[in-house]
């Protein structure tokens, strides 16, 4: 089965992982913003942004939109690297945890690995299509 689409095979697993993160990141940020937005507005709005990025990436992957997927996954990679570095350098910038804090260590480092998996899969997918 060398079908490259997200309707089959490994692509379905990639979509499943993105779906889990879309759900957990956006649910967490909704909760944070609804209950304690004033405590750490920077961290919580970042959580919300991360949630939106995962939702769009999931949608793009599930509906086979490689350009949109590439854009969101690249943004996700930059996000996790930037926020990961900032939290390590100066923890006071983010008083509360986000998905991307400490390179996603609170989520088993999956947020750090996931964009690479997504990009590798997109790359393999596009070579298949040609």
């Amino acid at each position, binding site marked *: 089965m060398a079908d490259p689409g997200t309707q*089959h*095979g*490994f692509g*379905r*697993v990639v979509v499943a*992982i993105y779906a*889990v993160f879309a759900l957990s990141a956006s649910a967490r940020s909704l909760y944070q913003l609804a209950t304690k937005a004033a405590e750490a507005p920077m961290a919580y709005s970042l959580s919300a942004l991360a949630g939106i990025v995962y939702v769009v990436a999931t949608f793009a992957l599930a509906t086979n939109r490689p350009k949109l997927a590439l854009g969101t996954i690249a943004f996700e990679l930059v996000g996790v690297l930037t926020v990961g570095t900032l939290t390590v350098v100066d923890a006071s910038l983010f008083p509360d945890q986000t998905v991307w804090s400490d390179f996603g260590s609170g989520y088993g480092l999956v947020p750090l690995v996931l964009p690479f998996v997504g990009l590798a899969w997109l790359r393999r997918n596009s070579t298949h299509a040609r």
Partner: protein
Amino acid sequence: MINQIAYTVFWLSAVVALVAAWMTIRHTQFNDAMFYAVSAVEVGTLALLGTGIAGVVTTDRHVAGTLLISYLVTLVLVPPVTILWGVAEKSRWGTGVVLIGMWTVAVMSIRVLQVWHG
């Protein structure tokens, strides 16, 4: 009570995740045994939802109730989605989806305990 059920759900889903990982490596498709195993996890998450709601209502401690119940409801939804997706995928990645789903349940059941104990 919540402790025992959450740990049972954790171990059960962790074991099913490991079996699913093994099946993915061995190119095994989603089968009946996998269906019953994920269904058993679903029964566990339902029990956890019940005791969780009862716990939030009856406890004297301050517990983040909304957060806890949103976790519990999500937990109940994961196994059915896992089964639907696993059955629909006619390759080894059907069990790959089960691995992701059960891993999610395992992690979330531990998060439930963290939220419950504050």
